[in-house]
């Protein structure tokens, strides 16, 4: 097989054999509605924090699914928990609870 250059850039790969979905599964266990997400981006469009900065709740949902846990905590600090995302979500996902749970689980892992 020919060697492709893009395969050389390791940090851009999503390795589905070693996908760390522990956090995702735990969040889904606490808030099952999270699995209905279609990544439509309504939450991001309405976000109060997203209006001030690059905070992007859709992206958080995506990178969580990809198992990229690093940087998640820092990013989620910006959320004001106002709950607009929950109200606009066409799939009725309780995003406030999702954010709270991601933060709680990360904190639990850090202290454990």
């Amino acid at each position, binding site marked *: 097989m020919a060697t492709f250059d893009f395969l050389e850039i390791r940090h851009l790969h999503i390795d589905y054999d070693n996908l760390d979905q522990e956090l995702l599964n735990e969040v889904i266990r606490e808030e099952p509605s999270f699995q209905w997400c279609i990544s439509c981006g309504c939450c991001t469009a309405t976000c109060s924090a997203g209006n*001030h900065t690059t905070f992007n709740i859709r992206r958080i949902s995506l990178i969580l699914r990809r198992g990229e846990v690093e940087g998640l905590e820092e990013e989620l600090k910006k959320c*004001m*928990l106002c709950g*607009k995302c929950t109200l606009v979500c066409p799939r009725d996902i*309780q995003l406030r609870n999702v954010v709270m749970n991601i933060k709680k689980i990360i904190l639990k892992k850090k202290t454990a």
Partner: protein
Amino acid sequence: MIRDPNFQYPFLIGTIFLFAYLTIRVILWYIKLSKYDKLRFIHFWKTKSVWAAIRDSVADGLLHLSIFKKNPLLGYMHMSLAFGWFLLIVMGHLEVIADRHSLNFPFYYAVFYRYYQPHPDFAGAKVFGAVMDFLLLIILSGVALAIIKRIRKQIFGMKRTTRLKTFDKIALSSLWLIFPLRLLAESLSAAYYHNGSFMSNTLGEWFIQNVRVSAIYDLSWWLYSCSLGFFFIALPFSRYMHIPTEIVFIFLRHAGIMPKKYWNSYAQIQMYSCSRCGICLDACQLYEAGVSNVQSVYFLQFIRNNENVDKSLFGCIICGRCQEACPVHINLNDLRTALRIKASKPLTFSYEYTQKALQQKAGIIYFAGCMTHLTPQIKFSMRRIFDFLGEDVWFMDEDKSICCGAPLMLAGQYDSASQLIQKNTELIMASGAKTLILSCPICYKAFREDYVLPGISIKFHAVYLNEMIRQGRLPKINLGFKTIYHDPCALGRGSKIYDQPRYVIDSYSQRIRLKKEKAEALCCGAGLGAINLPIEAKNKVTFEAMSYFARFKPNALITACPLCKKTFARDRRIPVLDIAELTARAIDEYVNEQKKTVRETRLIES
């Protein structure tokens, strides 16, 4: 004649234990109060509020008047047990004093008087006997009602009763047994000595004909004493702890001690004051929606038993309907918030990025809040109103909105909420404004309770509109539709603003009066208090509330909360308008009419 002087020991042990326990408890509670609360409490005894506290203790602790208002039969049940027993104790002691002409007798003597005094022959003995029998009869009717209530609660106007714990069951059964056993013991006494009255003598005669009285006479007094002893020992660990605690709570409340954001001994006293009567269960809309573990009675019970409270604590909308219904007047919303703050680990939030927001000088500030930005019609309407009034208003969060902090506070994140509060406070204070107008009741409640804004009057938009109409600066005009006003939880029960929005709506439309309004208003179901409540339950609450409104066939549902509007608008049965939108429509109508009259007068003139 005293045949077995030992049977009083169970009662004695129970009473001494209870007295010792309560003394230590009350001292501990007092010590744990904050310094200022202690000062308030000491000062309180010099004020007239003491009388109010005594009046409330009698009205709520003994007579249970607030339960009477809910359902007379339920009120009678509670009153017969509490006030009846109280009178029985008082009269019992008076009877002994009348008999012996002295105060020098052991305190248990009055409790077992019929045993120790087989031949009461003092003046008025017959009257006392009749009164004691009558009081016992009243209490027994209360016990009978309590048993019936466990089986058929509907006749008491209740849909549900609470689930009981082991200690509650012990205490409940001993309480229910005390009075039949007293009747049994006194009747057997009456069988021997005929020292009773209409009830005990009649029963005694029946006993002497049908039962071998001598075999069970001592046993009956033993059982009576044991039931009292068991009840007193189980009391501190059961729901009956509310009996002594409620009195302490009433006095502290009248002393002006307020609930705090942190869990303190006042909160603990309130927790113990819950009698688990179950009246909050019927008030809770979530019960209808199939959620049966978040109700106040259960969450207080879980905390007392140190059980896992996460689901029941964070699954509540904090609409406050239970707080309004509570006959003990416990500050359930504040308790829940304080407990959420206590139960949550601080999750770090950081809002450094918000510093870029603009600062501006203004006389009046309008703060829309996140939810108003979600329902833009409200902010456009507000702008229309300000334009019409010719007010120079700084729209503080027009493009970069900072949350007021209430959602974080409700999620138990006190420190993070304080960050946002500080940001907003800085912006507002720098502007030099005198008035702050809000169109979201959640923000309004937060600004009023959690912010310190000296020299600034915080006004809800409905209150502001009401003022403007009364001053004649806004027109009164009938738009010709039938409306229903929905009290938002944070505005009505939360901030006690009921009449001003109604006045505004009455100025523009024909308002239908509802049964469930003001303090009993329904919740829309989307309140920010609910953190881990399943969406199905929320939607069910919304649907039920909307179904209630739809029965009155209004042309529009008027609310004063963007969150309620957003939630109700999903159900398309009734168009939903905010009070600002209604006002803006009225202004448009008024302006159009003015133009028309101007045009007509010109036509006539030409």
